[in-house]
């Protein structure tokens, strides 16, 4: 998998969604915060107006400023309160913090309300004027705690972070899944393209080989007949040489037949087959060779196994595998086990031979690959071709000096 794919199909969508969520949430939170601040500002301004009415009444009743302000000392949400005269000189003030009255004539001149930052959080300030019935002008300067608003915003910020973390985890899982699916399908697509190319190449080679085989076979048949005639008419001292020549012609003919067989597309006629019968046929076919080598072919039956397959082709496939195992075994035995799992039948062919080296193992099913001096290397290739034509699979497990096991798996089991 290329780095580009990882970036475009995992990193980019994942970070993109997170970034989008972050931006949307930030905009949303900013909007809510501004709205809440407006609402709180309106509420506090309304409270200040009520306070102003109350203070006006107390001043009109003749209470001095310090007595008036003292009545608000217990108000938890008021951080500071100051009463100013018409010349904006502070008459009295109360604060929760020593000497802390963030009043500035410069800043007070511009706005009636504002939010100021402080180490104890945001403070909403109100600067408002009023007159008593006697015509005296006063100003009231108030600082309200926005502690609750801060708490609410902190709660919102915390929830946002939790949500972002949850989104990150879910996104990570989701986009990882999407990426894996993409990777899987990409691999499949690449495989299919490679397979198609291989099939096309094989078709070309098959056509060419079939043509060559046909062109060779005709003169070879004539040569075979000529050898036959020569055999009949040759003097006794040349009889042996002619027989050898005829044998070589027959050998070439067999090779060409095998080539033709290998490249011909399989045509199957599926029928109900009994595994025990197929194995018995193979045992009979290889009986002479088995006996000659002193390597018995043992079949360990489990229960009667039946499947839908082309009996002749399946026999040929299993025969090729068993023959390969037999030829690789100098001593011991070749054991065939067959069993079923649901509708899948598996046939394991194990030998006690020398095993296949690690470098040869991946090439074992390639056509014309053989480690034997006498073999053409098409037996296992044909076996694989037949099994795959039955939608089955064949695999091999081996190690040098540990013997070899071929495992054939076939669908179409009949219960």
């Amino acid at each position, binding site marked *: 998998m290329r780095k580009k794919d990882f970036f475009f199909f995992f990193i980019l969508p994942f970070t993109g969604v997170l970034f989008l969520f972050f931006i949307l949430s930030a905009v949303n939170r900013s909007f809510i915060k501004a709205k809440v601040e407006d609402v709180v500002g309106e509420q506090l301004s309304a409270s200040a107006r009520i306070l102003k009415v109350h203070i006006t009444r107390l001043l009109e009743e003749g209470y*001095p*400023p*310090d007595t008036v*302000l*003292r009545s608000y*000392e217990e108000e938890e949400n008021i951080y500071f309160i100051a009463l100013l005269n018409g010349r904006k*000189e*502070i*008459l*009295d*003030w*109360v*604060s*929760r*913090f*020593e*000497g*802390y*009255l*963030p*009043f*500035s*004539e*410069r800043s007070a001149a511009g706005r009636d309300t504002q939010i*100021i930052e*402080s*180490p*104890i959080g945001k403070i909403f300030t109100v600067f408002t004027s009023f007159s008593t019935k006697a015509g005296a002008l006063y100003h009231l300067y108030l600082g309200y705690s926005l502690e609750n608003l801060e708490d609410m915003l902190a709660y919102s910020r915390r929830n946002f972070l939790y949500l972002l973390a949850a989104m990150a985890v879910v996104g990570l899982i989701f986009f990882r899944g999407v990426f894996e699916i993409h990777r899987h399908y990409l691999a499949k697509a690449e495989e299919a393209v490679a397979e198609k190319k291989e099939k096309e190449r094989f078709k070309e080679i098959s056509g060419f080989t079939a043509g060559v085989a046909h062109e060779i076979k005709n003169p070879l048949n004539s040569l075979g007949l000529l050898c036959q005639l020569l055999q009949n008419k040759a003097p006794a001292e040349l009889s042996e040489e002619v027989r050898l020549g005829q044998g070589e012609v027959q050998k070439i003919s067999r090779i060409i037949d095998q080539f033709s067989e290998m490249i011909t597309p399989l045509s199957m006629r599926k029928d109900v087959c009994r595994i025990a019968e197929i194995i018995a046929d193979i045992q009979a076919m290889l009986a002479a060779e088995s006996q000659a080598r002193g390597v018995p072919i043992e079949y360990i039956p489990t229960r009667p196994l039946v499947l839908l397959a082309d009996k002749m082709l399946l026999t040929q496939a299993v025969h090729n595998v068993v023959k390969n195992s037999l030829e690789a075994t100098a001593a011991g035995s070749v054991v065939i086990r067959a069993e079923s799992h649901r509708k899948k039948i598996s046939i394991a062919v194990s030998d006690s031979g020398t095993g296949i080296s690690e470098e040869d193992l991946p090439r074992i099913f390639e056509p014309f690959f053989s480690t034997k001096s006498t073999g053409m290397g098409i037996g296992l290739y044909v076996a694989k071709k037949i099994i795959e034509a039955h939608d089955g699979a064949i695999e091999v497990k081996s190690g040098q000096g540990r013997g070899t096991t071929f495992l054939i798996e076939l669908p179409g089991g009949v219960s």
Partner: protein
Amino acid sequence: MALAALLRPALAQQAGHFYNIDKEIKIEGTIQEIRLEPRYENTARFLIIHLQQKNTSQKFNVEVSPAWFFSQDIHKGETMKVVGSVYTKGDGPQNIIAREIQYLGKTYAVRDKQGFPNWRGGPGGLQKRRRGKGA
């Protein structure tokens, strides 16, 4: 002179006795006297330094912080720079509520730029109201 020995009666408060950022000044002077005085209701005594400005010889009473907060050992005759908010009380010397003190090459912040006390949450706590009285 040790700070702990300098206890004096409380000074009267004024309405203008708050940190007014419009009236912030910076002075450099010599320490004339060191006192501990009550300044705000329900708080510990404050460290008050009498400072004589170097170039004008004008005298200032500098309100630093609660004595427990400013724990540096300071001495008469030493030079000190103060940034703070000035307010006048009667005909006496000018008063300064200090925000920043520079003493023996070190800078000590006792309030933030809005005048918020940096000793918040310490002895005395934040629960009680502090008030300035009318003149």
